Every structure is written in C-alpha cells, then in structure tokens.
C-alpha cells in the first residue's frame, strides 16, 4: 500500500509541476538558509573543552571603582583582566587548586641555522599549572614544575607546528630555543594543540585565531620584560614609564584562570577574593566595597561574545525565514490537497478509512520534504561555500558539513514538511464522502 501511495504521490506532484516546485523550493530555501547560518553558529559556539568547561573559572576584580563605569564602559561590566599586582597576589594566596596567571606574548624566534629567517611567533606566558588545567596533549616531554616557576627558569613548551618548522618534527625536548635575546630549554612539545575558541585567554586573544606556538614561564617572561601582545586598559591613571611602571600600575592586562572542581572549592575561592578585596580596601587602595565576579567558561564565553551578535542575528533571521517558508508550504499544500476533494470523496466512499487518506497525503508531504531537504542540502553546501569567503579564515575552517549537519538538515526538512503537512492532511482526511459525490 505504501508503494502505491508513493506512486500516487509522485503522479499528483507531477500533475501540478509548478505548485510542486514552489513547495519544494519553499522547503529547500528555508532549510538551506537556516542550516547555513546554524552551521556557522555551531562552529563558533562549540565548547572547546566540554569535559571540564564548567570547572574553569575566570575572576574579575573591581579595581577602578564604580565611578569608572558611570556611562562609558559597556554595561557597567568589570574589567576582564587583572592588574599585575592583583594577579600575583592571587597566585601567592593558594597552592592547592590549579591556577595560572597568563598573558599573550609575541617573541621572535631566531633559528640556529643562519640561512633561515627569524620569525615572530605567538604564545602565552603561563604558570606550570596551565598545562594541567587546559589538559594539553603532550607529544614529547611534559610541563615544567612549580619549582621552575619559582626559579624563573628559562624553559619553553612548544607546539608541534613550531617543532616541525625548527626541528623537523623530532623529539626536541632538551634542545635550545632562542626567543628574543635569551635561550630557553624546551621541556615539552604539544601534539597539535589548537583549541577553538582559545578559551584560556578570551580576554586578550582573538577567539578564533592561530594556535599558540610557544609557552614560557610567566615569571621568566616578566623577567625578560616581554610586553603583552593583548589588551591593556587603564582607569584614571596611565602607568609611569618603563616596564616597572607597567607592573606597578593600576592598569589591567593579566588574564587569570583557575580550576575549581566542586561547589566548596568555588565557595572558598569566592571567600578568598572577597577577603583579598576587603584587605585592599582596609589598606586604603579602594574607597568602595569589595566587588568581584567569578564566571565559569560558558558564562565567560558569553561575556566575551565569542559568538558575535552578527552570527546570532543571522540564525534568528534565517529561522524566521524558515517559518515563513513553512506557512507558505501549508497554504500551498492545503490548496493542492483540497483541489482533490473529489478524488478523496470517491476513495472514502469506496471504503478507504480516514487513516488511509491521511497516510496517502502524508506520503505526499514527506516526498516534498525529502526532495526539499535534498535541494536544501545543496543550498546549504553552496551557502557554506559562500560563507567561507565572508568569514574570517579560522572560523571558515571550522564551518563545515559533516555527518551530523547532513542528518540534521534532512531531519529539519522532513520535520518541517510534515509539520507543514499536518493541517492540510487533517483537512483532507476530514473530507466527507457524500458532499463531494453530490457536487461532482
């Protein structure tokens, strides 16, 4: 019977080719537009470290006071990085939970081979705990120790790309790396580590930028006076001149990341922040009550607008577009089905149940859905190809059609076609046999 309905469906679709084409294209455009924009949204909103994103926390301290936010700063939000002084104070306070202060650096690598050009690389100055917090995969070697942090040791962990470029991809642990005017000893090589978005320093980095090539101890980077390659914000006063002026200033530029495994750890970290700030207030640094925020990674990604408003807006508008396409399909299906009231009446009079009629028209609606879905898939493919020109390189690389997207597209098409078909099917199966026979 199903095969018969299918052939009936095809016959009916062929009888009104323009109407059929309209419906199919309606579904296809709606699905194509929403899936294209959704693919971009999915690429950008993905959780870069799903197994522990809710355990990674980012503190914010109110170091400039309420006056600094009156009117000028967006939404009265606290600065998203810390001053060097505060970051160091927090690092000193606790040793039992993994935490790290960090900032982006852009040193120059001078190769040993004088025929090779020196290159500027991107990286981060971090504490040894960083690698544990971020679960970085090591190809060779390992992270440096807390002792190395304290010793301001000239060590480095490099990513596999740089290892490939400098050492041909071999085990380079123990080898020397010349950054700027100092030589660092390589202790670890990461295995193609490129989390996107770059969750550990959204405040300072481009969320979908290139992978970091090199990591060195925070303490060593400060010793070497490496300037930050990220944001630098000041309240009322600019720093005095020189690197020491920057370190002693009330300007924010140091990112901070802490891993808190359970509610009690979160609570005690909050107590710590509260206590630190009230100490500072008592010491006369602030004349406002302690004010801080402690967000976990999902909330932090939201604050840092990892998914830009444009992307969200596109998804919303494209979904509304799909809605209109569905309303359109409902109207057209209704017209198409009701035009065959006579045929339905005959079938009903000859004993077909309402269920049989519903199935017959359901098959027809599903056929439209599948065809629309397939064309919608092609449109999505074209849409994503176009998006690759319109998007920044790294986001474009993340936006792709995979099996999930493929399945979701087809599913969306069929579900929308069936949803659109529900009311017309109901109306068709409700046609009374006698009425139609009388008229014709």
């Amino acid at each position, binding site marked *: 019977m199903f095969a018969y309905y299918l052939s009936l469906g095809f016959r009916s679709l062929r009888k009104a080719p323009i109407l059929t084409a*309209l419906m199919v*294209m*309606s579904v296809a*455009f709606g699905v194509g*537009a929403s899936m294209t*924009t959704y693919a971009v949204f999915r690429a950008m909103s993905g959780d870069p470290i799903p197994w522990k994103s809710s355990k990674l926390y980012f503190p914010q301290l109110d170091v400039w006071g309420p006056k600094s936010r009156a009117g*000028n700063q967006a939404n009265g939000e606290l600065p998203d990085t810390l001053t060097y002084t505060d970051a160091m104070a927090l690092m000193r306070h606790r040793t039992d939970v993994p935490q790290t202060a960090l900032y982006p650096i*852009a*040193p*120059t690598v001078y190769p040993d081979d004088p025929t090779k*050009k*020196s*290159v*500027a690389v991107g990286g981060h100055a971090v504490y040894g705990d960083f690698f544990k917090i971020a679960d970085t995969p090591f190809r060779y070697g390992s992270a440096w120790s807390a002792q190395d942090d304290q010793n301001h040791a000239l060590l480095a962990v490099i990513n596999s790309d740089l290892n490939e470029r400098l050492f041909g991809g071999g085990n380079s642990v123990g080898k020397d790396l010349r950054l*700027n005017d100092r030589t660092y000893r390589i202790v670890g090589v990461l295995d193609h580590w490129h989390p996107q978005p770059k969750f550990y320093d959204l405040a300072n980095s481009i969320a979908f930028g290139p992978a970091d090539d090199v990591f060195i101890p925070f303490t060593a980077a400060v010793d070497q*006076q490496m*300037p930050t390659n990220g944001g*630098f914000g000041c309240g*009322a*006063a*600019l*720093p*005095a*001149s*020189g*690197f*020491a*002026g*920057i370190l002693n200033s009330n*300007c924010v530029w140091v990112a901070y990341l802490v891993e808190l495994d359970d509610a009690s750890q979160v609570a005690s970290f909050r107590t710590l922040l509260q206590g630190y700030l009230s100490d500072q207030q008592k010491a006369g640094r602030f004349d406002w009550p302690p004010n801080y925020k402690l967000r976990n990674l999902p909330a932090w990604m939201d604050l840092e607008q990892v998914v*830009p*408003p*444009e992307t*969200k*807006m*596109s998804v*919303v*508008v*494209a979904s*509304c*577009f799909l*809605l*209109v*396409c569905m*309303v*359109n399909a409902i*109207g*057209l299906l*209704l*017209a198409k089905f*009701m*035009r065959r009231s006579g045929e339905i009446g005959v079938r009903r009079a000859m004993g077909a149940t309402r269920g049989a009629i519903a199935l017959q028209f359901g098959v027809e609606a599903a056929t439209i859905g599948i065809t629309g879905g397939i064309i919608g898939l092609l449109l999505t493919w074209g849409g994503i190809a176009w*998006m690759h*020109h*319109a*998007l*920044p*390189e790294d986001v474009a690389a993340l936006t792709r059609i995979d099996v999930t997207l493929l399945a979701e597209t087809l599913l969306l098409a069929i579900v929308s076609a069936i949803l659109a078909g529900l*009311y017309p099917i109901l*109306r068709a199966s409700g046609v009374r046999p006698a009425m139609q026979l009388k008229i014709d």
Partner: protein
Amino acid sequence: MAIHPIIAALRKHKTGTVLIVLQIALTLAIVCNALFVVTQRLERIHRVTGIDEADILFVSTSHAGLSADTDSGKARIDADIQGDLQTLRKLPDVADAYESEMLPLSNDNWTLGLKRSRDDRRGAPGAMVYADDHAISTLGIKLIAGRNFQPDEIAQHTLLGMLEPSVVIITKHMADELFPNGDALGKQVYMVGGATKPSTIIGIVDRLESAASQTDSDNLSWNSMLLPYRMTESQRYYVVRAKPGRLEAAMKSVPAALYAQDPQRVIPDGQGDKAGVRTFAQIREEAYKSDVGLAQLMVAISITLLAVTAAGIVGLSSFWVGQRRKQIGVRRALGATRHSILYYFLTENALISTCGVVLGAALAIGFNLWMVTQFEMHRLPMPYVVSGVVLLLILGQAAVLGPALSASSVPPIEATRSV
C-alpha cells in the same frame, strides 16, 4: 465595488486567508528589519576615513631583544626608527612615510582622551595617533586650522605610559566636542591618564577615522589626536605613501629596503591580517568583511522571502480562482464584466494584504525592539516600516494579477457546466 460580498466569500476560506495574512505579516517584519541592518552596515562601510586611501601601505616590523626600558636601548630603537624612516623616504617608489601605532580601520585601537582642565570630570575620549611632521602629508588628511608639527617638536615615547605632549593636533569632531564654540585652536588641554602638564592644540584636521571600525559611537570613530611622538617599541608600524601608481612596486621595495637596513628584523610573511605588509585596501576589506557578509546574507534572505511570499500568493489565488470557476461563470452570465471580476480579485487581495501589513508593521516593530535588547541594534525608523508596507501591498497586487486575469477570462458558459 462592494466589499461585503468579498468578506462573505473570505469567510469560506478562513484558513487560506489567515495563512496569507500571516505570511505577509512575517515577511514584512523580517524584510524591514533585515534591510535596516543592511543599510546600517552599508553606512558603516561607506564612512569616509578622511585619509587618501589609495597608495597607502601599512608595514609591521619588529626587532626583538632591544629593551625600551634602558636609556641605551631606547636610544638604539630611536636611532633605528629614524634610520628606517630616512631610508623609506628616499625610496623611488615612496612619496612619504612616518611611524605610528595606529591606522584607520586597522582595529588596533588605543583610546585615551583630552580634558579641558586638570580636574575636568568628563573630557572627550580620543584615539591616540603617534605622528610626526610627515603624518599629515602621508595620510593625505586636511589641516583646516593651525599648523603642522615642526621636526623639533617630535620626541620619543613608549607605547604605554604617561603622555604629556606640549603640542597636539586633533580632529574637528573632537575639537567641537571639547570646545563647542569653535575656538579650540590654541587652547590648552590635559591628556587623560593623569597628565600634569598641559598640551596646546596647534592644529585641527578635518577628519580622521579611528582604528575602531566596528564601533557605532561617533566619539570613538571621529575623535582622534595626533601626538608628536615616535613610538620607541621593538614592535612598530610604518605608514607609507607610495608614489601614484607605484603601490605594487613599493610592496616589494619597502620590505626589501627595511631588511637591508636591519637584517635582524622580522616582517611577518602571513596572509590576510597577519601579513606584515598590507595595502590600505586590504585593511579596509578585512575590517568590513563581516559587515559585507551579513549585508549580503540579509539581502539574499529578503529577496528570497519576497519571492516565496509572492509565489505563495500566486499559488493560493490560483487555487481559489480554480475553485470558483462556476461562480465566476454565473456572475459573468448575470452581466458582470471582465473588469469587475478582475477588480473583485484585486480588491480581495488588497483586503488580505492590508490585514497582513497592519499585523506585520506591529510585528516588525516588536521584532526590532527584541533585537535592540539582544544585538545592540538601533530602533527601526518609521520610513522603513512604511516603505515595507507599500512594497508588500504592491507585491500582493502584482502577484494576484495573473490569477485575477485568468479569472476574468472565465467565459459565462462556465455557469452551465458540470451540474
């Protein structure tokens, strides 16, 4: 044409009518807002930076390991910069050059501000532009009052740290904000950030957009201040104006000359915004890539949406005409002219469309208000809604014209058929 019979007939097609009303309403709501987004983005893209954009190159170069913290390091960096600039200005492909930390639209933004007195609470924010006496001619901006920097006024300064220049040149927008009476020239102002020594405004330039290409704030876009400083940092940028028509050649000769000057330096290879040598056209393209993409998407969605809605109206109207062939025949047999049949369907559509656009106008405004809370959008101006309404009414009439014409050509004989 009496409206009453049309309404009576529509009561028989409640579902179809409601569907078309809904479709027109949603279409109006989406198209109004989408086109509003498009015009806003286009306005942003077409903002005039104020600089003469053709022939400009932006070169990033670094020489790591020199500390700007020691006097000797600073002196070495400053000497390097002056050497670089002399080399660049002598190149046959180059018209002029200077060193800075910012260029319009580069999105590398350093914002500070000026105050009218030391304890002025508000002041005006402004983008920092490290500049020298060659900046105005290199950028091709217009000095509309006062004078340019003199070579002996240019000092060295690191990127971060307290700024207290003795002289400053600001944009007209910033001058008007600080001194609305138009008498900014010659006034003494204080740099935000704790300056204790005043700076004298010696010149006013017509227009110079800041690096913040994505901002919608007039202050952040148009307030810029030229500071008489060479930036003594190991990471620095040169703004180079090529001689007319020699941009391509300069893209090769400039880095070559810089490498010859200092083989230890790094000019990144990279593609796109990571490239060390970029033309202003590339910077502009990068800056507005996402705006162009969004605008194109919105236009594509709007056009498809209008087409889908028009097709829907054609489809349902044709169905209704088909259903009513007999009634049309009866009316024709009773003396109705072709015109009155045509007008019947046009009026019917006008009625439905009017309901649709009324509902749609409300939806458009509601949708916009929601977007304002979600996406930092502006309020939808009424002209957009009005033009959207007119557009959809015309679209509706155009879409129904075909089916209405075929209805009007139903012969009176139809009345006698199939009974």
